[in-house]
C-alpha cells in the first residue's frame, strides 16, 4: 500500500501540475514576504470573487478541450444569456432559481447549436465557434442596440452572503455568489470528469475519436453534452459577472475569450484533446490570478500587467514543451 502511494506521488512529481504548484508556492511565498497584504483572508476572498467568471468559463472550456474540440464563442454566449436573463427578470420578476434556470437554458441551447453545426455539418469546431461568436454577438448588439442595463432587481444586486464570519475588528467575510458558483462548478466538473462513466468516455473520445466511435461510443451525444456543458457554464458565469459588476454590459465580455484559453492551457490541457485535469485548470487560473494580483500589490503600474502575464505564458509553455522533448529523447535512447 505505501509503495503504490509512493508510486502515485512519483507520477505526480513528474506531472505538469506539480511544477505549476511549485511555481505558485514560490510566487506566493515571495509575494507574501514582499507585501503583508498578500497572504490575508481578505485578499484570498477578493481573488476568488474576481476570478470566478474566468474560472467557471475555464472549467467549461476544459471539458471541450479534453473532448478534442475548441470553443471560443462562450463570451458571446455569456453576453446573450446575461442580457436576456436580466431583461426577463426586470420585466417579469424572478428569483435565484429562475434566473439561473433561464441563463442555463440559454447557454445550453446556444451550446447545442454549436454541437449541431460541428457534428451534423462536419465543420471543424474552431470554424464553427469563430462563426457563432460573431453570429451571437452581432445579433445581440443588433437587437439590443448595445445598451447597458444598470437597474437590476434588488435581490440580485444584494447577492448572496453565506457563513459570514468576522476577521479582526471591522472586516467580515462570507461565501458570496461568486465563490459559491465557482466552488460548485469545480466540484461538479471534477465529478463529471473523474467519477462518472461519461467523463471517461469524454477523455477517450478526445484521445482518439475514430477509436471511440468504433468502440460504439455515442460520439454525437457526447459532443452535444460537452458543448452544452460549455454553454451552461457560460450562462452561470454570466450571472456571476453581472452580479459582481452590478450591471449588464453587452459589449465588455466579448474579447476576453483568450484569457480563458490562457488559464486552461497554462493548466496543462492539450489542444489536441484527451489531456487535461481540473486540478491543472485550478492551478493555471491561480497562477494568472496571483500574478496579476501580485503585480498590483508590488506597486507596479497595472499597465504592465499584460506584459508579465504574456511573459509567464511564453516561459511556461516553452518550459513544458522543452521538458516533454527531453523526456522523449531520453526514452528513445535508454
Amino acid at each position: 500500500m505505501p509503495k503504490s502511494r509512493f508510486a502515485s506521488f512519483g507520477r505526480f512529481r513528474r506531472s505538469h501540475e506539480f511544477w505549476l504548484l511549485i511555481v505558485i508556492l514560490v510566487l506566493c511565498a515571495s509575494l507574501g514576504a514582499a507585501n503583508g497584504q498578500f497572504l490575508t483572508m481578505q485578499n484570498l476572498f477578493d481573488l476568488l470573487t474576481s476570478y470566478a467568471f474566468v474560472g467557471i468559463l475555464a472549467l467549461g472550456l476544459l471539458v471541450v478541450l479534453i473532448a478534442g474540440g475548441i470553443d471560443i464563442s462562450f463570451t458571446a454566449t455569456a453576453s446573450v444569456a446575461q442580457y436576456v436573463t436580466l431583461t426577463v427578470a426586470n420585466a417579469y420578476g424572478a428569483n435565484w432559481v429562475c434566473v439561473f434556470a433561464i441563463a442555463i437554458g440559454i447557454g445550453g441551447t446556444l451550446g447545442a447549436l454549436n454541437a449541431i453545426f460541428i457534428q451534423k455539418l462536419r465543420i471543424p469546431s474552431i470554424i464553427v465557434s469563430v462563426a457563432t461568436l460573431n453570429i451571437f454577438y452581432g445579433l445581440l448588439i443588433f437587437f439590443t442596440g448595445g445598451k447597458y442595463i444598470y437597474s437590476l432587481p434588488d435581490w440580485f444586486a444584494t447577492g448572496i452572503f453565506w457563513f459570514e464570519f468576522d476577521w479582526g475588528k471591522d472586516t467580515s467575510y462570507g461565501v458570496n455568489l461568486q465563490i459559491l458558483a465557482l466552488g460548485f462548478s469545480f466540484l461538479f466538473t471534477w465529478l463529471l470528469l473523474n467519477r462518472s462513466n461519461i467523463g471517461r468516455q469524454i477523455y477517450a473520445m478526445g484521445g482518439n475519436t475514430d477509436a471511440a466511435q468504433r468502440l460504439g461510443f455515442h460520439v454525437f451525444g457526447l459532443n452535444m453534452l460537452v458543448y452544452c456543458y460549455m454553454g451552461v457554464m457560460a450562462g452561470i458565469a454570466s450571472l456571476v459577472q453581472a452580479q459582481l459588476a452590478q450591471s449588464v454590459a453587452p459589449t465588455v465580455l466579448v474579447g476576453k475569450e483568450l484569457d480563458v484559453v490562457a488559464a486552461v492551457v497554462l493548466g496543462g490541457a492539450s489542444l489536441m484533446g484527451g489531456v487535461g485535469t481540473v486540478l491543472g485548470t485550478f492551478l493555471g487560473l491561480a497562477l494568472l490570478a496571483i500574478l496579476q494580483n501580485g503585480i498590483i500589490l508590488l506597486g507596479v503600474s497595472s499597465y504592465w500587467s499584460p506584459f508579465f502575464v504574456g511573459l509567464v505564458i511564453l516561459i511556461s509553455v516553452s518550459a513544458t514543451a522543452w521538458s516533454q522533448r527531453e523526456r522523449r529523447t531520453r526514452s528513445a535512447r535508454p
Partner: protein
Amino acid sequence: MRNASTLALRGRLIRLAGSGTIATLILLLVALWLVFAITIGDRFFSVNTLQSMAFQMPELGILSLAMMLALLSGGLNLSIIATANLSGLTIAFLLTHYIPGTQGIAWAGVQVLAIAAGFAVAALVGLVNGFVIAYLGVSPILATLGTMTLCKGLAIGLTRGNVISGFPEPIVFIGNGTVLGVPFALIVLALCALPVALMLNATPFGARVYMIGSNEKATRYSGVDTRAVLLKLYVLSSLLAGVAAVVMLARFNSANAAYGESYLLVTILAAVLGGVDPFGGFGKVGGLLLALIILQVISSAFNLLNLSQFLTLAIWGGILIAVAAVPHLGGKAPR
C-alpha cells in the same frame, strides 16, 4: 420531366459549388451583387462606394494574409494584431520624436528609418514566435497567445494606453492617398498578395509550407528542414503584420496599443471562408482575396442600407458556416 431537369440542374449546381471553394465563392459573390443591385440600385455601383470599399479592405486584407501563412502550415498566429500595434507604435514614436525640425533628406530619412524600425520590431516578434514554435515545439496557438499578450503588454506599458498621432504627409498618403483613382493602400495590398501568391505557388519554399501543413512529420522525414521553414514562415507572417501596421497608422493618422483588436478573429474567418484549411495544407491567395471582397461587399452594402455593422458581423458568421458546410451538403466525404 420538368422535375427531372430541375433535379439535374440542382445536382449540377451543387457539384459546381462543391467543386472548389473558389467556384462557391464566385457564385456567392455574383448572388450578393445581384441581391444588392436590386435592393440598393445604382448607388451600390457608384465610384464613391467602390472607392470606400477599396479603402477599407487593405488593412484586413494584409492581416488576413499574415494569418493565412500561419494557417497553411497547420498553425495559427494570434499575435498579428498585437505585433502590428507594437510596430505601429514604434514607427509613430520615432516619427513624432524625430520629424519636428527636420527638412529635406533628413525629413525623408527619418520616415524611412522609422518604417524600417517598425519592420525590425515585427521581425523580432516573428523570430520569437518561429523559434518557440519550430525549435521548442510549442503549439502555435499557445506560443502566439503568449507573444500576443507580451506585445500588447509592452505596447500598453510603454504608452500607458495613450494614442500617438500626427504624422508627415507621405505617411498619411499611404493610408489615404490615391494613384489614378486607386487607393494607395489597395496597391500595398496587391504588392503583398502577389509576392505571397508567387512564393506559395512557384517556389520550393511555398511547396514545403503546404507539405508541412499536410503532414509535418512526413515532410521532416523526407529531408526538409521543417524547423527552418517554420521559422521563416512566422517571420514573414510578422512582417506582413508590420506592413498592416504602416497602413493602419497611416489611415487613422495615429497609433495605439488596442487598434484593430476585433480584426483578430475576422482574419481567421476571412481565411477560412477563402478556402484555407484550418488544419493546414490547403488554401490559395486568390480564394482569400475573393473572401475579402465578399466580406467587404456585405459590409458596404449594409452600410448603404443603414443596417448595423453588428448585423454584418452576424451575417459574416452565417456565411462562414454556410460555405464551410457546402462540401458536406454536396455529398462529398468530409475531411
